[in-house]
């Protein structure tokens, strides 16, 4: 469904994403995990062609269902955005336009891509609001964003992304800005919608708990690269890249951890990688680092669908 290879994004002298490859299959939930600043969101925006002015995108391939997105004009991309690819963002409080009603913002995307009467679009909007778990859709349609809570706004955003029945939904940290109790609800909703509608879902998160609950496939990003990609069970059972291992080791697991026992964090912090950097971006923090890590790192395959970027062999 979505096939990205060698994606690079740079902002002036800083390369935020260098060489990300990613495959999202039909009807699959693919989680992209990593620390803040590792390039997850930039990757998503680059796929959508929504990077800010001044950002430079290069890639070997960005394919969507047989279409080469790299070759599309902005107008052509606009026909896919909102219609076949939906996107929701991290900031529900500011992602809706404060000046227009929920109804207006939902129907405009439908009428833009599908045409039809206002009444038909409104009917579709009400149905989708119900589908995303909003009670009294009729009332909500006439309201403005400031009259809704954060959780409700994110549900509106989800409904908006689904108005045209997309094949792919990109969700960029959709629960990060919400209360914990609301997070669970939004997550359940996304998982349910993905299954019911047969969506391909690219879910960006830094929360491994989320990954464990909803993902089919997981890609772990570090400093602008995907360092490991595996089916969710394999990733948790056999993490292979030292960064993935460190990430899993730093998550507190109730029952497994004795009182007073310290967590096992990864030493150091995410470095800023210059564009001409060669080798493994993790080597300065890695306990297995060796001289060979300073030259190009091979992509190894541990099992079908489980690849990682490291000199080590398991």
């Amino acid at each position, binding site marked *: 469904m979505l096939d990205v290879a060698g994606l690079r994004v740079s902002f002036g002298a800083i390369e935020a994403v260098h060489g990300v490859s990613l495959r999202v299959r039909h009807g699959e939930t693919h989680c992209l995990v990593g620390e803040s600043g590792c390039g997850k969101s930039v990757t998503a925006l680059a796929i959508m062609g929504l990077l800010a002015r001044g950002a430079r995108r290069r890639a070997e391939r960005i394919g969507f269902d047989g279409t080469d997105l790299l070759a599309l004009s902005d107008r052509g*991309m*606009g026909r896919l955005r909102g219609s076949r690819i939906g996107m929701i963002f991290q900031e529900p409080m500011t*992602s809706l336009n404060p*000046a227009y009603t929920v109804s207006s913002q939902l129907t405009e995307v439908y009428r833009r*891509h599908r045409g039809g009467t206002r009444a038909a679009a409104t009917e579709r909007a009400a149905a989708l609001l119900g589908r995303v778990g909003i009670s009294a859709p009729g009332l909500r349609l006439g309201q*403005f964003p400031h009259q809704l809570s954060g959780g409700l706004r994110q549900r509106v955003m989800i409904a*908006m992304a689904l108005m045209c029945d997309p094949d792919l939904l990109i969700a960029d940290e959709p629960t990060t800005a919400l209360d914990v109790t609301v997070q669970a609800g939004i997550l359940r909703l996304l998982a349910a919608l993905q299954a019911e509608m047969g969506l391909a879902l690219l879910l960006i998160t830094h929360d491994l708990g989320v990954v464990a609950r909803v993902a089919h496939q997981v890609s772990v990003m570090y400093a602008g690269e995907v360092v490991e990609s595996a089916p969710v069970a394999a990733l948790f059972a056999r993490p292979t890249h030292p960064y993935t291992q460190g990430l899993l080791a730093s998550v507190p697991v109730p029952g497994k951890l004795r009182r007073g026992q310290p967590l096992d964090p990864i030493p150091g912090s995410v470095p800023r990688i210059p564009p001409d950097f060669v080798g493994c971006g993790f080597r300065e923090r890695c306990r297995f680092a060796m001289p060979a890590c300073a030259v190009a790192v091979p992509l190894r395959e541990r099992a079908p669908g489980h690849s990682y970027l490291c000199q080590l062999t398991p």
Partner: protein
Amino acid sequence: MRRFILRRAILGVLVCMTVLVISFGLTRVAGDPALAVAGPQATAADVAAIRRAYGLDRPLPEQFFTWVGAVARGDLGRSYLFREPVANLIRARLPITLTLGLVGLGFALLIALPLGIVAALHEGTPTDRLVMLVALLGQAMPSFWLALLLIIGLGLRLQWLPISGIDDWTGYLLPGLVLAFSAIPALMRLTRSGMIDALGSDYIRTARAKGLSRASIVLKHAARNAAMPVVAIAAVQLGFMLGGSIVIESVFSLPGLGFLAWESISKNDFPVVQAVVLLLAVIYIALTLFADLLNAALDPRLRTG
């Protein structure tokens, strides 16, 4: 919303009362109208008689309260100079100034809004800098000088537009254009900065993620949110234009309110000066209230918040 309007109305009345005191006070220190009315050949006795006739020999507080009482009843007094009720003088001239102000505002918006939007869309590029330079030049150019340039260029050389008087609507075009120029820089800057803010916001990213057309993103989603400070400043600018058209009206010989104010100030015609100042204050207050209402219509958060 109703409480908001009520509060603004009370505030408006207070401002008017302050204006009454100040305009009364300032005209009293400005000079003696009896001298102007009596003329250079008048004797001291003539001047004294005129003072008595107009009540200028009464103590100041008494004059003030007599005047305020009359204003409260809707009587603006009689002009010393024109020997006519002030209300008649104003009624004849106000429409000219209002028309001129609206034409000026119309020109200003027509020029400033598109330029501001273009500058915002090209932020940081040579296009942006060129537009801002034009704004700076507009701000730096005195309006009487611009008026003369336009009179020479459009009026005398090309003979496109009449250069003085108002025989028909074309008479308003040149003075309106000159008046607009003073308002353009502020409007354009605000449009530009408001649009830059709006275009960088999360809801514009959402609009792009929805695949909306560029026109819809810029004109519907961004412009609506950028409009509020522009509306507020446009109202203030219209106030400036109405009150500050003195220079323009005299350059183009338009018999408007500004022209009347200038004449009556130079002749110490107190009742007219006071009435014009009061009228402008009322217009100003009404304009800002109108701008607030317009903003409430634009931004739902102000209506229900």
